[in-house]
Structure formats: structure tokens, C-alpha cells
């Protein structure tokens, strides 16, 4: 079976959703949709035994074979873990959404199309081996996420959030494309596996670090790392199933996936390790610190997601250290990253669903209004408590296990000797510990302020009650996983984590069975992580108890010093500022544009002439100048000066006619009778036309000409004149090839049967030109005719004003 085709199954299913939504009114459309992720989940689950053995499943079909671009599905442990998350949580989210979204009130036809599109895109991201198709799916997740966040498009906040997430993630996506381009040039292939196979060659490429940074930009924007996390809290305007699915369990992990996927390629670089670990850890702290400030349930969860993603990111960075250091703890860091990734998907998914249930039942998500829901919604409370305790890192929930491993890994960074980690490394466990304290606080804050703290239930917009059972199924299943994983972690480890770790750290393990790490809930009393956890719990509990005292101090931070404000200012600049800039030079005055054109013409030409030292001056081919030519040139100069200085239009045109006639005289002198004839007649006719047309115009006025303007005009006119003169002299002095005129002289009678070379060239040798010149003349005549005859009469004449 070609697994590559399964990527497209949700996309194809999406085609039928609007049809089902229209035709089958009685059954909630979600029930049809549910089958898609569920079946895919079963299919992917059946691959687990294969991947446990260390086998990978590959299949492909060509897209643009001439460019080496194909859809290549490469399912190893890492891809399989993500595919299972996507389809598994996808099924649960669809199930949840069936109860959450109302068939009659919501545009479900849209919702499920976007959701299925997203599912395809996500499967494509995690399974693609070809970076170009990976990028394609990557942007498709951005687009479908944009559509889902803006699902309630009549709300301003939805549209704002959708746009913000789009701007940031697409920015990162484009940067990532640049990184991919560099990598594929360096490796000579679009395939990620081949890049990793050629990693030494890729690492020698001069742009290697740039590619690394660009790809990290893509991963960090998608995974909401500092400072790009700002789109995630605003994306909470999406329907809650979307938040649960995209913004906690799947899409935001695409960046983590990318980092994990490229770790074997980039981990040799210290830049990679520093940035991934550092930014990850900082994001962990930042997100957990600001989560306590939030008052909206989903905003708390959003910041918590940011923080947890940072945690996983820092673990991925630490796992890269295993390339340089033989210490087993760095191998464990990679394991912990994957493990926490799985754990986070379970508990965060359920918590989002809980937030949705509270919102659905109580009518608000504002934590200041909520409280005392424990006795009214006991099941919801239980699930919320399980999720929160796991998030806080308490036993007996899975978050405890991965948190312990995380703290161990951060402690070990101190001993990492390369890249100056031994000096600054002490900061890592400290920050990690502080962040864990805040994680503990907001987890308790989330669950106890909503359910346990005394609150006036009567004042809520809706009268809360336990939600329909169907809505609870999904969070209960996820919460069950939270507990089950704690008790049998090593089973899960064998099934899905070890194959993923083997893909993450291929230099350590050949097959998943080589991963000998065992997860233990109990390390003994001398394990430092245990005491750190005890410290987290004690300090965290004390701080939670005094939360009301110190939470208001968050208000100290002025609002203009926030990253959101920075983003807004940037967006504002791109609209208003750019508008100002373009207004500054797009004056709408033709004179200004002519200034630009002429000035740039002469500057560019002069630079080109002198940079290429193309200027040459050679008098050897100049013919002797006759006295008539000098006299005529003086007439011409006089006439032109008169044109420039004339005060009335008529005088200027007559002077123009004089210059035209003197040019005709030049033609006579230089033996061009045809030109002279034509020039004479044309000059006469055009002066007559000018006089006919311009006698109706008012007197010339200055059009706001000032002295300054005139000086600038004069300088630029002189510049253009000098440029042209120089170019003419230079081109006259350098004749590279002889003229072809001899051919015309020789063949004018024999081949063309004529005597006047000029006319024969016009009608015979190069009649093509003449054909189109008379066409130009005809168009001019038609133009004059239409402009004068077909003028709009009456009110419409001023339509364009």
C-alpha cells in the first residue's frame, strides 16, 4: 500500500463535506468527517510494530520530476508519532466538535473543510522527505490555520488574530524556504535523508549557518517561540476545537518536528545548540511567567502552550549535545523531548476542551467571573484537575515523568564542556526551575480559580450544568491517557517513543531497541530532580496561596513595552509609514517624475561610462566643418535659445519651426535630400497644427515655477545634455564594426530594381518598419479623432475628477 496517498485522503474527503452538509440536514456533518481521521489512525497504528523493529515505510509519487520534486512519504518513528497524534487527536477533536458546534447555527460546511485540509497539510508536513513538498504542506497548514482562526469572520478579533498568525507564520515559512533552498544547493538534493547523509558536505557550505538560522526562523514562528509567540494568544479567537487541535497538539508542534527532523544535520553546529536550547528555555520561562497574568482561560492555556513548547524545544537543543558529548543524559534529553511532546498533546488537548466546555456551559471564559463550578460540573473538574496536575508536573500523571527528565537534562548542561556552556550553563537549570514554579502556579490558578474558588454562579451569563456526555468523551479519553502513560510509560516508550528517538538521534541508535532508557517514576532520595520537584511544589504552592497579593504587580509593565505593541507598530508602519514614504516621492506632479527619470538616466549612464572607462575621444574620423555648417549651427542655437526664453507660446512654436528648418538645411548639407524634403514638409504641417491647436489655450503661466525649481531643472538639463554629448562623442570615436551600407549600394539596382537607396530601404529592404510606422500614423489619426469627436458631454465629462 502506498502510504503517500493517505496524506491526501482528508483533502479528498473535504470535497464531499459541503455536499453532505447541504443534503443531509438531520445528521451532524461531523459524524461523516469523524470516519476519516479515525480510519487513518487505525491505519497508522498498524504501522507501530513495523516501526518498533526500526523499519521505515517509504512511498512516493512524482510531482515535477524534471526538477526532482516529488511527494515522498517517509514514515519513520518520528513521522509515525506525529501522524498518530494528528489523526488520533484529530478524531477526538472532531468528536468533540460534533457536540460543541451546532448543526443549525454554524457553517459546518466550512469548518470541516478547513479542518480536513489542515489534517492533510499536517500529515504532509510530518511525512514529507522532499523539502519542497514539505514547504508546500507547511504553508497549507498556515493557510488552513488562518481560515480556522477566522472561522467566526464577523468578529473583529477573529480576523485580527487570523491575520496576525498568517503574517508571522508565513514570514517564517518563507524564511524556511530560503533555508531549504540553500540546503538543497549544498546537498545537491531536495531529500532530507540525502542532506543528512551528506551532512559533512552540507556543513562545509559557506551559507550553512544562514540556512540553519532561516530554518530555525521557520520553526520558531510556527512553534510560537520567543519572540514570535505573540500570534498564539490571539489565535484563541478560533473555535475551541480548533485551539485544542491546532494550537496545542499539532500545528504548533510542526516547528518542533522540523527541529527534531533536522537535528541530525545541524547538531554539529554550536549555533544550533545555543539557539535552540537558549530560546527554548527562555520561551519556557517567558510563557509560564506571563500565563499567570492572564484572566482568560484560553489565554492561560495559550501562554502555557508557548511555555511547554519552549520546554520541548530546549530539550531538543540539549539532545543535539549528544553529538558532542558521550554523557548519557543528553541522550535522555532527546528521549524526554519526544516523551514530553506526547504528554503535552494529551493533557493540553484535554485542557483546551475543558476550557471550551466551561465557556459553553457558563457563557464566559473570564476567570474573574468563574468559580465554584466543582460541585456543578464534577466530571469536568476531574478531567481539568488531571490535566492541570500533569501540566504542573505532579505524580501520578505523565507530566511528572517528563518534567523530571527535563530537570535532569537541564542540570546536566552545567557539565557540558564545549561552546562555553560550562560558564553560562548554570543559568539553565535556574531558569528551568523558576519556570517550573510558574508552571505550577498557573496550573493551579487555572483549575482552582475556575472550579474551587468561591464564585457567584448566579451571576454567570448562562446557568452551568454538566455538559452532554458526548462533549466529555474526548477530554476523558485524553485524561485517561495522562494517567495510563504514568503507570505504563515503558510500554508507550517501546511502542512509539523509542522509534522516534532513534530517528532523532541516529548517531546513537541504529534501531529502536538500542534505546535502553527506562522511564522511572522513582529515582531514589538522592536524585537531584526529586528535590527540585519538591522545591517547585513547596515554593509554587506558597506563591499560589499568595497569588492575589502579587498578581496585580503584573500591571506595572507598561502596555507600550509589549511585543504585541511592537507588532502593531510594525504593521502600522507598513501601512501608514509606507504610505507616507510613497507619498513623499509620488508627488503626482509630472515635473518631479521627469526629474527622477532624467537625473537617474544621466547618473546611471555617466557611472556606466566611467566605470567601464568607455569614454574615448578620437578626431581622426571627423569630416572638415564647412562655414555653412557653422552658420547653420548658430541659427539652430539661436532658435533653440529663443524657444527656451520665449514668453508666449506662439513665439516659442515659431522658433521651434525655425530650428526645424535649420535642421532641414543640415540635411541638405549632409546630402540627405529625402530627409530634407520630409523634414521641411513635416515641420510646416506640424507648426500649422500647433498654431491651430494652441491658439485656443490661455496665456502661458509659470505653473508654480520658482527660482529654485529652475536651477534644479537647469542642472539636470545640463547633466542630460553633457551625458548625451559624451556618449555621442564616445560612440563616434569607437567604431567596432564597419557599416553595412556598402551592401545597399551594391545591390540597390540588381536586387531591388531602384536607384534611391533611402526609398528602397524604406519600402523594400526594411519595409516591415514602414508598415508599422504607417500603422502608428493611422493610430495617431484615430486617436485625434476619438479624443475630439467622442468627448463625453455634460456632467460625465468631469467624471474622472
Amino acid at each position, binding site marked *: 500500500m502506498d502510504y503517500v496517498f493517505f496524506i491526501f485522503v482528508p483533502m479528498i474527503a473535504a470535497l464531499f463535506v459541503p455536499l453532505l452538509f447541504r443534503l443531509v440536514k438531520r445528521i451532524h456533518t461531523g459524524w461523516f468527517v469523524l470516519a476519516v481521521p479515525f480510519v487513518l489512525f487505525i491505519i497508522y497504528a498498524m504501522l507501530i510494530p513495523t516501526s518498533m523493529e526500526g523499519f521505515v515505510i517509504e512511498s512516493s509519487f512524482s510531482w515535477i520530476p524534471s526538477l526532482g520534486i516529488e511527494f515522498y512519504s517517509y514514515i519513520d518513528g518520528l513521522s509515525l508519532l506525529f501522524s498518530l497524534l494528528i489523526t488520533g487527536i484529530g478524531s477526538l477533536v472532531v468528536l468533540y466538535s460534533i457536540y460543541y458546534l451546532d448543526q443549525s447555527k454554524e457553517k459546518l460546511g466550512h469548518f470541516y473543510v478547513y479542518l480536513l485540509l489542515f489534517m492533510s497539510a499536517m500529515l504532509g508536513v510530518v511525512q514529507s522527505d522532499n523539502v519542497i513538498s514539505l514547504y508546500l504542506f507547511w504553508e497549507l497548514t498556515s493557510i488552513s490555520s488562518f481560515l480556522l482562526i477566522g472561522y467566526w469572520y464577523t468578529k473583529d478579533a477573529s480576523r485580527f488574530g487570523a491575520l496576525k498568525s498568517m503574517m508571522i507564520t508565513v514570514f517564517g515559512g518563507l524564511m524556511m524556504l530560503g533555508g531549504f533552498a540553500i540546503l538543497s544547493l549544498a546537498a545537491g538534493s531536495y531529500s532530507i535523508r540525502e542532506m543528512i547523509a551528506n551532512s559533512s558536505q552540507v556543513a562545509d557550505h559557506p551559507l550553512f549557518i544562514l540556512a540553519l538560522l532561516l530554518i530555525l526562523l521557520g520553526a520558531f514562528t510556527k512553534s510560537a517561540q520567543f519572540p514570535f509567540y505573540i500570534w498564539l494568544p490571539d489565535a484563541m479567537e478560533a473555535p475551541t476545537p480548533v485551539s485544542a487541535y491546532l494550537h496545542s497538539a499539532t500545528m504548533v508542534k510542526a516547528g518542533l518536528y522540523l527541529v527534531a527532523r533536522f537535528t541530525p544535520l545541524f547538531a554539529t553546529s554550536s549555533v544550533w545548540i545555543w539557539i535552540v536550547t537558549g530560546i527554548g528555555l527562555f520561551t519556557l520561562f517567558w510563557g509560564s511567567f506571563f500565563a499567570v497574568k492572564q484572566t482568560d482561560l484560553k489565554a492561560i492555556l495559550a501562554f502555557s502552550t508557548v511555555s511547554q513548547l519552549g520546554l520541548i524545544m530546549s530539550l531538543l537543543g540539549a539532545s543535539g549535545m549528544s553529538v558532542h558529548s558521550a554523557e548519557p543524559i543528553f541522550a535522555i534529553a532527546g528521549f524526554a523531548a519526544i516523551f514530553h511532546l506526547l504528554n503535552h498533546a494529551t493533557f493540553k488537548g484535554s485542557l483546551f476542551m475543558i476550557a471550551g466546555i466551561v465557556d459553553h456551559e457558563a457563557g464566559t471564559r473570564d476567570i474573574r467571573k468563574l468559580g465554584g463550578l466543582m460541585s456543578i460540573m464534577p466530571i469536568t473538574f476531574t478531567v481539568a484537575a488531571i490535566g492541570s496536575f500533569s501540566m504542573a508536573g505532579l505524580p501520578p500523571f505523565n507530566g511528572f515523568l517528563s518534567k523530571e527528565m527535563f530537570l535532569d537534562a537541564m542540570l546536566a548542561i552545567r557539565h557540558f564542556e564545549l561552546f562555553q556552556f560550562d560558564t553560562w550553563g548554570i543559568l539553565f537549570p535556574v531558569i528551568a526551575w523558576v519556570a517550573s514554579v510558574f508552571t505550577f502556579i498557573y496550573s493551579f490558578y487555572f483549575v482552582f480559580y475556575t472550579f474551587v474558588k468561591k464564585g457567584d454562579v448566579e451571576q454567570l451569563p448562562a446557568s452551568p450544568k454538566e455538559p452532554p456526555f458526548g462533549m466529555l468523551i474526548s477530554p476523558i479519553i485524553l485524561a485517561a491517557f495522562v494517567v495510563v502513560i504514568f503507570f505504563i510509560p515503558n510500554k508507550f516508550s517501546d511502542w512509539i517513543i523509542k522509534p522516534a528517538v532513534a530517528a532523532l538521534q541516529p548517531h546513537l541508535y541504529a534501531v529502536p531497541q538500542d534505546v535502553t532508557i527506562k522511564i522511572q517514576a522513582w529515582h531514589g532520595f538522592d536524585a537531584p530532580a526529586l528535590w527540585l520537584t519538591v522545591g517547585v511544589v513547596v515554593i509554587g504552592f506558597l506563591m499560589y496561596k499568595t497569588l492575589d497579593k502579587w498578581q496585580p504587580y503584573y500591571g506595572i509593565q507598561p502596555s507600550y513595552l509589549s511585543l504585541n505593541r511592537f507588532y502593531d507598530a510594525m504593521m502600522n508602519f507598513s501601512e501608514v509609514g509606507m504610505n507616507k514614504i510613497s507619498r513623499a516621492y509620488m508627488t503626482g506632479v509630472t515635473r518631479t517624475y521627469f526629474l527622477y527619470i532624467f537625473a537617474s538616466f544621466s547618473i546611471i549612464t555617466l557611472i556606466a561610462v566611467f566605470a567601464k572607462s568607455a569614454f574615448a575621444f578620437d578626431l581622426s574620423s571627423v569630416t572638415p566643418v564647412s562655414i555653412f555648417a557653422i552658420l547653420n549651427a548658430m541659427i539652430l542655437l539661436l532658435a533653440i535659445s529663443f524657444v527656451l526664453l520665449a514668453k508666449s507660446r506662439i513665439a516659442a512654436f515659431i522658433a521651434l519651426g525655425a530650428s526645424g528648418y535649420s535642421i532641414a538645411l543640415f540635411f541638405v548639407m549632409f546630402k540627405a*535630400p*529625402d530627409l530634407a*524634403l*520630409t523634414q521641411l*514638409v*513635416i515641420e*510646416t*504641417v506640424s507648426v*500649422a*497644427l500647433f498654431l*491651430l*491647436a494652441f491658439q485656443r489655450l490661455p496665456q502661458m503661466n509659470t505653473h508654480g515655477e520658482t527660482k529654485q525649481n529652475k536651477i534644479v531643472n537647469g542642472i539636470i538639463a545640463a547633466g542630460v545634455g553633457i551625458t548625451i554629448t559624451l556618449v555621442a562623442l564616445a560612440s563616434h570615436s569607437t567604431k567596432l564594426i564597419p557599416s553595412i551600407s556598402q551592401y545597399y549600394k551594391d545591390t540597390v539596382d540588381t536586387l*531591388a*530594381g*531602384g*536607384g*534611391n537607396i*533611402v*526609398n*528602397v530601404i*524604406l*519600402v*523594400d529592404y526594411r*519595409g*516591415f518598419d*514602414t*508598415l508599422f510606422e*504607417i*500603422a502608428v*500614423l*493611422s493610430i*495617431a*489619426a*484615430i486617436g*485625434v*479623432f476619438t479624443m*475630439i*469627436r467622442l468627448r463625453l458631454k455634460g456632467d460625465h465629462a468631469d467624471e474622472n475628477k
Partner: protein
Amino acid sequence: MKTNDVILQTTTKVVFFIIFIFSIHIFFAGHYTPGGGFVGGLLTTGALILLLLAFDLKTVQKALPFDFMKVVAVGLLLAILTASWPLFVDLPFFTHAFDDFNLPLFGETSLHTAMLFDLGVYLVVVGAAMTMIQTIGGDT
């Protein structure tokens, strides 16, 4: 008040034909001596402008009841047909043919298809110039 243009009008009646005949001469002479369709056309236009100056627009339009737009079209058609007929006899676009013929009235004459093309140019020039002048002059 109507000005009396007797001298101008009478002179015009004579001069017009001189200019016109000269323009025809220039047109035909073009292949061997200075001239050709373009100058010829312009000179004819000059003659017509003289008519316009001496008489008024309506009189000239009555005397020469051409739609000069159609003259332009005919000229273009003639030019493009002259240029494209070689395509039908398997020759490249714009191949001209010429030879000497012994015509009954003119005697030994050299005929050239380039002349037809030039005639197209001539008609376009006359038509375009006259269209412009009539349109601009007729606009009050």
C-alpha cells in the same frame, strides 16, 4: 463681416493643381530620385490644406467627399496586402517583384510592386493628416 478672398481663391485654383501634380511626380519618382510615398503624401496634404485655407471646411468636404478615415484603411490594406501576397506563392513576407514591361502607351516601363506598397503609404499619410486637420479644424 465676410472677407473678400478673390485673389487667394483664384491663385489657389491654379496653385493647387501645380502642387498636386508635383506631389504625384514626387511619389512616382521616389524609387530612383528623392521622394516617395511619404513626401508625396505630405505634399498632397499641403495642397489640400491650401484648399482648406482658401475655402472653408464645408466647401472642401463637398468638393472632396472622401471619408479620410477610409482612405487610411484602404492605404493600410494595400500596404499589408502588397507585403503578404508572396506568402501565397511560397516566398518570404515582403518579397517584392519587379521587371521591365513594354506597355502600349508608356513604352518601355519598369514596374515594381514596391510602388503599390508606397501607394499604401501615400494614402495613409494623406488620410491620417487630413483626418487630424479636419477633426481639429472642425472642432469649435
